């Protein structure tokens, strides 16, 4: 209801007032134009003057005729007066005047005067007083007629004038009424205008207050605030922004943004502003802001919004929040996390190692138990049967047989001892107790020592040491380990060599390493087992039926790697060749 009333007063009333104003104005304009047109006085209405002039001309002609008779005027003068009167009559006979004369019904009299005048001209040079008298007689009614005509003309003109003035008055009254209406409508319009002006003023005041408040907010904001127009020129630059960039507002406003600081030229910021021009807001976190080359960059969070006016994007507004402290805190957090992760990884590694050791110990014991049950039983059975036989034979046994039986038992026990030793070695290796005491060694000496020992242990098997092509046979390793590696390989070679075939050992080398190849003839190791044989407790398919722990190659390989060398199975087709590689001794390495 109130809205409707507001609408009625706010819009309808002025609209009606304007309509009334326009209609009345048009009406009074039309009326005034009519009056203006009517007020052009037609000169044909000036008949009073024409008749007066005609009367004067007639009277002066009569007078001149009399004066001619008295000899006080000449013929020329008389002729002029006649012409003047004739010209008056001619005027009266002309269009508009003639019509008026006919209106007042004096046309016959006028014709008679004209005819009389025609008879008088031209005036003879010998104009006699008698003729003068006749002329005066003829013109006598003329003056009277013109006088009467003037009288009638006056009445007609006054009637006409009176009527016309009455019409004017009526029209002017209408105009006055219209003007009063116009004033009324104008008053309403003026009042409406005043109300509208007051409202506008109040709104302007409110707008100004809110603008001042906004300006206060912007200037006192801790965030850097700037605005750019569509051309990329800075239109707003607050104090916080001046502090961040190092340029006061006076230098910044009106300048292209890209020229104010290199920071505003970076691609993500330009893209954000472009997006704002398309009407989308965007945020950029922790952008580095370099004020100059020397100082550390500050890190700012950016928010970019479009600025609109009547729905049209007229620019963009940017908020820069100094987030350097947050960035530093984040960086610290990240570093702490990395450190923690490293620590955890290290601990995990330690735990994994420990677990692996535990597992291998468990495996060892399990395998040891299995091996004991299987491998240890055979030599024990051999020793047992030898001793049983000795006991059964009793005194009948000769001394040679006693020695033979005892040696068999001892061999079995020696094998058992070796088994126990190698098992313990691996256990020490697993426990990390087996440190390498590396030094300068002559490899050929080690080879000779081990081969001699092997020949002594098993004289039936031929072991050949092939001549070394290398003069320098010094290596850098723990000699005890080297002996054990070589011993393990020789034992294997002897164990798996074809019956009667020799085992050969050859030392050679390259620039970095010396190699020792141990070769035996026999069945080659199947392709699918070549990698597996170096594993702990792995026993090849051809090892069934022979004593062994499955630890020899594992031990040899592990020890070789501890010396900085390695152990390989050479790709042979006739027999099996294992190669030990050990680093050459270099004086600087000692």
């Amino acid at each position: 209801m109130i809205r409707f009333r507001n609408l009625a007063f706010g819009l309808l009333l002025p609209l009606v007032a304007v309509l009334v104003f326009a209609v009345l104005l048009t009406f009074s304009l039309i009326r005034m134009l009519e009056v203006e047109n009517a007020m052009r006085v037609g000169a044909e209405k000036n008949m009073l003057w024409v008749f007066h002039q005609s009367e004067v001309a007639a009277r002066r002609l009569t007078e001149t005729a009399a004066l001619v008779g008295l000899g006080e005027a000449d013929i020329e003068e008389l002729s002029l007066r006649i012409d003047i009167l004739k010209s008056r009559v001619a005027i009266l006979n002309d269009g508009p005047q003639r019509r008026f004369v006919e209106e007042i019904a004096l046309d016959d009299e006028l014709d008679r005067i004209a005819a009389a005048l025609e008879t008088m001209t031209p005036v003879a040079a010998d104009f006699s007083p008698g003729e003068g008298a006749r002329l005066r007689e003829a013109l006598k009614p003329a003056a009277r007629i013109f006088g009467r005509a003037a009288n009638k003309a006056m009445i007609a003109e006054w009637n006409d004038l009176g009527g016309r003035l009455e019409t004017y008055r009526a029209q002017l009254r209408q105009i006055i009424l219209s003007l009063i209406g116009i004033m009324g409508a104008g008053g309403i319009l003026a009042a409406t205008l005043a109300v509208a002006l007051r409202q506008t003023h109040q709104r302007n005041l409110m707008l100004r207050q809110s603008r001042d408040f906004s300006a206060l907010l912007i200037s006192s904001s801790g965030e850097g605030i700037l605005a750019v127009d569509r051309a990329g020129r800075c239109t707003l630059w607050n104090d916080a922004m001046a502090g961040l960039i190092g340029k006061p507002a006076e230098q910044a406003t009106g300048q292209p943004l890209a020229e104010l600081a290199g920071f505003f030229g970076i691609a993500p910021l330009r893209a954000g502003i472009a997006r704002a021009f398309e009407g989308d807001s965007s945020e950029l976190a922790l952008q580095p802001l370099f004020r100059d080359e020397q100082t550390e960059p500050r890190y700012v969070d950016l928010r970019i919004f479009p600025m609109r006016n009547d729905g049209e994007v007229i620019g963009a507004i940017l908020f820069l929040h100094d987030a350097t402290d947050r960035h530093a805190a984040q960086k610290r957090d990240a570093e702490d996390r990395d450190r923690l992760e490293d620590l955890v990884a290290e601990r995990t590694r330690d735990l994994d190692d420990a677990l692996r050791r535990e597992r291998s110990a468990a495996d060892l014991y399990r395998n040891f138990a299995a091996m004991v049950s299987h491998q240890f039983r055979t030599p024990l059975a051999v020793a047992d049967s030898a001793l049983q036989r000795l006991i059964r034979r009793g005194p009948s046994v000769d001394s040679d047989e006693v020695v033979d039986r005892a040696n068999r038992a001892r061999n079995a026990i020696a094998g058992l001892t070796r088994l126990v030793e190698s098992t313990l070695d691996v256990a020490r290796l697993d426990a990390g107790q087996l440190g390498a005491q590396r030094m300068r060694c002559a490899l050929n000496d080690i080879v000779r020592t081990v081969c001699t020992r092997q020949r002594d242990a098993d004289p039936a098997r031929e072991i050949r040491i092939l001549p070394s092509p290398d003069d320098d046979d010094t290596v850098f390793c723990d000699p005890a380990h080297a002996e054990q590696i070589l011993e393990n390989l020789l034992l294997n070679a002897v164990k798996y060599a074809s019956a009667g075939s020799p085992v050969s050992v050859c030392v050679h080398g390259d620039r970095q390493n010396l190699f020792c190849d141990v070769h035996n003839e026999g069945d080659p190791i199947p392709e699918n087992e070549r990698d597996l044989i170096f594993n702990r407790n792995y026993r090849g398919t051809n090892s069934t039926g022979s004593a062994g722990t499955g630890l020899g190659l594992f031990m040899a390989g592990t020890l070789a790697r501890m010396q900085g060398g390695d152990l390989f199975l050479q790709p042979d087709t006739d027999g099996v060749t294992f190669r030990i590689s050990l680093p050459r001794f270099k004086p600087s390495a000692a």
Partner: protein
Amino acid sequence: MLKRTARMVAALMLIGGGALAGQDDIILDVTGDITDGTAKLDREALQKLPQVTLETSTVVTDGTHSFTGFLMRDLLDRLGAQGELVIASALNDYVVEIPMSDFSEFDVIVAYRMDGKPLQRDDKGPLWIVYPRDQHEALQDIRYDYRWVWQLSRLEVQ
């Protein structure tokens, strides 16, 4: 300079021609602030001025008429008239004051022929001051209508 000299010569010839004419043929007296103080001009002298024809209606006749004569300002220029006002008198002693500006603003003519026929003294002749009434709306006013002096006989420049 040359133009001015030529004009002086023409004026002298005009006056000389006028002086030679018989007293009875004089149809226009010009007095007052002109080069020679007075000038008496006959029909022949006046017809030597550049001829101008004007089509206009009048307030005392029906329809439009063709008026032939000369421009008032041509005559006043020839006579070296200096002043603000011209007092025109007619044969019937009708007298009216015409501002000089009328002749510069409008092509006001002094007609000696109407519709090809010479104006006669017993009509509106021999000379009739005619304003280009149809050509200028400002002239359609009774304050100009009374300046149409017919039977013109005298001009006094003030």
